[in-house]
């Protein structure tokens, strides 16, 4: 049984992958705590972005993924508040994923019928509904104060306070690797190719006898699950959640990072997320009033000059065989979103 298929356009050479993973594992105990924290958050949010990217590959832009991000986070938070006896990270994350997937199963029934900006508008509408409920039902959700999310164990293990940050990092890293692998299998599978076919020629898909709506729905389920996973992981890592998680600007940020990273690989969202968090961190230190300026400008540059995102630049630098770069490059320059 082979673990990795495909021509490598989904992932860089397997050697590099292992090196990268090894680095991520080995380096962590030796870098400063704030950096570990930054990476942890970047991975967690990167999972949400991965969910957005899975839909982007089918020509759908989810401007409301904050719905799942918040749902996963609040599933964990509310469970704790309601007195969940097991304050274990793994349990909370599972809860978050289950809740957000269930939500996606319902919302997806409606959303899978739409395209283009109407898909975007409806998805943001759903997320704003959740936001308005999280914000105003303060007796239930804590309102603007939010809820604290404090776990006492991870998979039953109880790291000491000084190792908590590191333990969270490895926990998130492990789940990220797992989730990315699942997403990878999806993109290499018939369903994954069907999504690309839908992006390319929806009519032909129907004329082949495959239901476009069902393909989108199933992909949407995984996309929602990833959003919830990212949300729960963020909740646990940060330790506190607020209704903002469902606000449209947060969803917009996920779309931003998706485009920044690119859609050419399941790793691209993570790359984009890490770069985003780094830039935001440093830009904020420079001046709290310029990080949006900087990031907005970066997005402008990406849209106008590098629509394939950072990943396409990365691929070009890695100098793949022309036969492999050509498809991805041409595809992205043709990324007209026209319907």
């Amino acid at each position, binding site marked *: 049984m082979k673990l990795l*298929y*495909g021509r490598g356009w989904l992932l860089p050479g397997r050697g590099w992958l292992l090196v990268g993973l090894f680095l991520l594992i080995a380096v962590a105990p030796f870098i400063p705590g704030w950096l570990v924290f930054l990476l942890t958050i970047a991975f967690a949010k990167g999972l949400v972005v991965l969910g957005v990217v899975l839909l982007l590959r089918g020509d759908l832009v989810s401007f409301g993924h904050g719905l799942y991000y918040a749902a996963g986070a609040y599933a964990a938070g509310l469970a704790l508040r309601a007195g969940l006896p097991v304050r274990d990270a793994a349990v909370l994350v599972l809860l978050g994923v289950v809740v957000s997937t269930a939500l996606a199963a319902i919302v997806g029934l409606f959303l899978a019928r739409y395209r283009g900006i109407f898909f975007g508008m409806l998805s943001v509408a759903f997320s704003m509904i959740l936001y308005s409920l999280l914000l105003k039902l303060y007796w239930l959700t804590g309102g603007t104060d939010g809820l604290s999310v404090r776990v006492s164990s991870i998979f039953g293990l109880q790291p000491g306070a000084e190792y908590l940050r590191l333990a969270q990092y490895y926990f998130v890293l492990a789940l990220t690797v797992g989730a990315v692998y699942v997403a990878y*299998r*999806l993109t*290499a*599978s*018939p*369903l*994954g*190719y*069907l999504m*690309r*076919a839908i*992006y*390319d*020629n929806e*009519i*032909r898909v*129907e*004329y*082949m*006898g*495959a*239901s476009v709506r*069902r*393909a989108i729905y*199933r992909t949407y389920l*995984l996309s929602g699950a990833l959003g919830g996973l990212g949300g729960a992981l963020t909740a646990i890592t940060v330790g506190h959640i607020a209704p903002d998680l469902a606000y449209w600007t947060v969803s917009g940020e996920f779309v931003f990072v998706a485009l920044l990273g690119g859609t050419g690989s399941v790793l691209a969202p993570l790359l984009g997320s890490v770069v985003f968090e780094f830039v935001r961190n440093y830009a904020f230190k420079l001046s709290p009033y310029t990080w949006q300026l900087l990031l907005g400008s970066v997005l402008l540059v990406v849209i106008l000059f590098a629509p394939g995102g950072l990943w396409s630049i990365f691929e070009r630098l890695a100098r793949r065989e022309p*036969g492999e770069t*050509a*498809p991805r490059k*041409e*595809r992205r320059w*043709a990324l007209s979103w026209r319907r």
Partner: protein
Amino acid sequence: MGVVLETVAVSRSFGAVKAADNLSLRFAEGQVVGIVGPNGSGKTTFVNIVTGYVKPTHGRILFRDRDITRLRPREVTNLGIARSFQIPQLYTHLTVLENMLIALSVQERRHWEFWRPLRLDGRVEAALRVLDQFGFQDGADQRVSTLPEGGRKVLDVALSFALQPSVLLLDEPTSGVSVDDKFGVMDTLMRVVKESGVTAVFVEHDMDVVARYADRVLVFAEGTILADDRPEAVFANPAVRAHVLGEGV
């Protein structure tokens, strides 16, 4: 040989234009039928109606005695009627092989799999075999956007054929193909069609092509059938010659 496809008094208007006027036709299993007629005579509308893309205002369509009039294209395809397009509808950003793999996975109803990869060795072999039948010996890893027009048309038909339909509708399979390639393309397509015994209905403008490959020719004119016979008989018919070939007018 049984009747595999039948239209019963099918009519369809677009505003004042009668694209289909009381069409009652029967297609027998294994027949190769050519449809000719001037532009706007209703040929493509006929294909659209049969495949469910357009609904007739009157009449029914029966596929193996089953009423498929109200079905959507996807359902019609799943029952066994596949079509190719005048402008080839392909997944241009994917390779020829990937296009075929997708078609085969849908045919096998395995297109919902999300864990096992598309490119399993067995499947790739099967895809290459089908592509080979249609003359794609080496180009399987080419991206479709780099294919010449003839190649695209053949691939379009190949994808529909891969669905193992009972009835294959070809909408102008040689239009846009250069004169040199026309017969090559049709030879390839018809060879596969005849070998497989699928019922084929193809819309064509080129009379030579029709004369060479069809068992039966339907001549469309303003939504009705002007003639329905073997090619030799049809092309000898003076009314046909006047209307379609413009002779003696």
